[in-house]
């Protein structure tokens, strides 16, 4: 994707998006509802067309020419209610260019794998929503595509099926297929992906691997509970400490830039005995909220923040 922009009337859904997903990667698109994830995915799928910018999918100018090599589970997913499950899957297979006598066997095999073996002859509207979702997952992977795109694949699933789907998901990834999925549930992305793209209000605000994000959003906070509360004063005077504030069950120490958290922790231990001391690891959610709120609160900082993020992303982003 190169400078992709899409507007609907007055609203800019996706603004000047640059993005490259390497082959075989497992990418997660995260962002709140209405951020532009689905629009981005629809443009990748050539269901929508960008107003500006260029985009290439699997080496072709658009997904139109490579639709058969892409598996897609849309967010707005449905089935033909009156159609038999087996017939529906075979139709989807045919529409995706898979044909021949083995198609039927494949459909049955997949249905067995997701515990829907007895549903081949059932009508689609006899299935629960979660079961339909599994059927749609099969429709996306049936033709063995090279690129898989899942839009909010886990929404509405119970934990058992969520795990089942996640395993199938990772299996596709291990088979060397490129997988992109979107979610607004951050911890799912954190568990699954090796690379994250964060979108907010149509802007890409982050594009980095999980490790890079951890490095970049290095913990600048140490939590500790001194045995003697007076010890906190001593800590405040240590070099490299910006502030010490009481927090739940202890104190929060914010670090000045350039301070090594590990060293500081040693120094704190030397100053005062503690019952507990830890580095606060930021969750993805923290990172996201951090970025978003900073975005909103300090318009002036927006440009520099984004520049910083882009620089960080560019370093880590594969060519």
């Amino acid at each position, binding site marked *: 994707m190169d400078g992709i922009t899409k507007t609907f009337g007055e609203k800019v859904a996706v603004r000047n998006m640059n993005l490259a997903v390497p082959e075989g990667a497992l990418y997660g698109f995260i962002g709140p509802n209405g951020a532009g994830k689905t629009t981005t995915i629809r443009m990748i799928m050539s*269901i929508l067309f960008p107003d500006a910018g260029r985009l290439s999918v699997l080496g072709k100018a658009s997904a139109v020419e490579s*639709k058969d090599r892409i598996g897609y589970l849309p967010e707005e*997913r*449905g*089935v033909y209610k009156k*159609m038999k499950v087996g017939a529906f899957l075979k139709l*989807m297979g*045919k*529409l995706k*260019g898979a044909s021949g006598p083995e198609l039927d066997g494949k459909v049955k095999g997949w249905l067995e794998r997701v515990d829907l073996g007895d549903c081949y002859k059932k009508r689609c509207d006899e299935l629960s929503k979660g079961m339909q979702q599994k059927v749609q997952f099969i429709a996306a992977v049936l033709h063995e595509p090279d690129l898989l795109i899942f839009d909010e694949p886990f929404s509405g699933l119970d934990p058992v099926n969520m795990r089942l789907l996640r395993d199938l998901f990772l299996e596709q990834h291990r088979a060397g297929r490129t997988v992109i999925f979107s979610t607004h549930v951050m911890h799912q992305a954190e568990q699954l992906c090796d690379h994250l793209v964060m979108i907010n209000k149509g802007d890409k605000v982050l594009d980095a691997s999980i490790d890079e994000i951890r490095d970049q959003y290095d913990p600048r906070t140490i939590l500790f509970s001194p045995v003697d509360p007076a010890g906190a004063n001593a800590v405040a005077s240590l070099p490299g400490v910006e502030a010490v504030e009481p927090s739940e069950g202890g104190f929060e120490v914010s670090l000045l830039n350039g301070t090594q958290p590990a060293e500081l922790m040693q120094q704190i231990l030397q100053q005062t005995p503690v019952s507990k001391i830890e580095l606060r690891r930021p969750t993805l959610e923290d990172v996201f909220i951090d970025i978003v709120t900073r975005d909103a609160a300090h318009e002036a900082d927006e440009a520099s923040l984004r520049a910083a993020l882009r620089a960080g992303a560019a370093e880590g982003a594969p060519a």
Partner: protein
Amino acid sequence: MITKVAAIAWREFSSTVLTKAFLIGAFLIPMLAALAIPLIVKFTNEAKAPELTGRVAIVDRSGAVLPGVERRLSKEGIATIIAETSSMVQQQLAAQLGEEAEKWREQLDNPMVAAAIAQGFGPTPVLTVEGQPDDADIDALRERLKPMAGESTDALVGLAVIAPDAVQRAPDAEAFGGYELFIRAKTDDRHIDLIRRGLRDAVLEARYAVAGVDAREVEALTSVAAPRTKEITDKGDAREATTAFNMMLPFVFMILLIMSVMVGGQYLLTTTIEEKSSRVVEVLLSAVSPMQLMTGKILGQMGVGVVMLAVYAGVGVATLVAFAKADLISPEKLIYLGVYFVLAYFIFASFMAAIGSAVNELREAQSLQTPVMLTVMLPYFFWLPITRDPNSTLSFVLSMVPPMSPFAMVVRIASTEPPPFWQIALSMAITAAFALGCIWFAAKVFRVGLLMFGKPPNFKTLVRWVRMA
């Protein structure tokens, strides 16, 4: 590419045609109706009039009618009336069938037919005519007519008051007087007809007697035989003028066309809305382009229309063959019908696909659909003028201007004065160009509309989408 379009077309076709609802709605119900109509007609015709026994009071103020009434409403008199009525029905049938009557003459003259018609009158009523004096108390007689006055065989069922000048004109008057008739409520209309007929004949007979003319002579003088009108066409052959068949064929052609076009189009609208509302559309769009999807759907539903057209046209042709009227319809007319079906269908289906893609549910489609439906309904109004004069300026213009042209031209082609070939070719060319335009418009709207949810659009929005796409 082609296999994808074919897969969609097949799904569209099979999910529509291979359903019980379609088989019942499209074939079973019309078939049952076709079977039921003759049955109902037969049933109503054969429902026998109930038995009737009673008295008819006559206040004969003219003083010359009563004997005639007595004779005509006697058992023999009634039998004569029934026989005369039967033969009149037979003659009317013969006139309506035109040339066919020659072939059927034997069957029509069959005494069995006469007997069957006579049977419709049920058991011969037994009536006793009761002469009343001129100054009889009419109110008292009317009181006796009331149904509660008892169901005995002696009860009064009718009362006729014959005017004094019914037989002899009053001085200076131009017209004769008549009679007043009172009938007991709920008397079968066939019986009323019998009594009226008896009274009328009796009055006429009395008048003839006074005028000194022979009744048979009058009948002979007043009837002119004008069996059938023959038309001389430009080829010089005498042909029977517009009979029912000749008028009906264009109508049947038009109805066939409208029906087959509408059925496919309606299903197209519903399935498109269903795909949109069930959200299956985005799954489909990940596999095929909007254009492929629309093409497949339109072709699939065209198959539905073709099935309808083939079945009904087949039945129609079979009927014509059965009536030995097959020469009215030539293979080329059927081919033209087929071509115009395709053109009309594409125009109609394009709009239906566009509308279906633009709205969220069937209810919202209504307002957009109305103008399209009206266009299809218009031919109904123009059928008669076109059939009457298939080569008038109105007929010519209507058959050239889409979207009316397929319907108007089909009516002209099926008429007894088919248009020259160049007109058919020109009309087809214009209509085909228009159809292509419609498909182009629909493709644009379809592409944008499929993923648009929310406020139902109007035609202005659709045009904006076309510019956008």
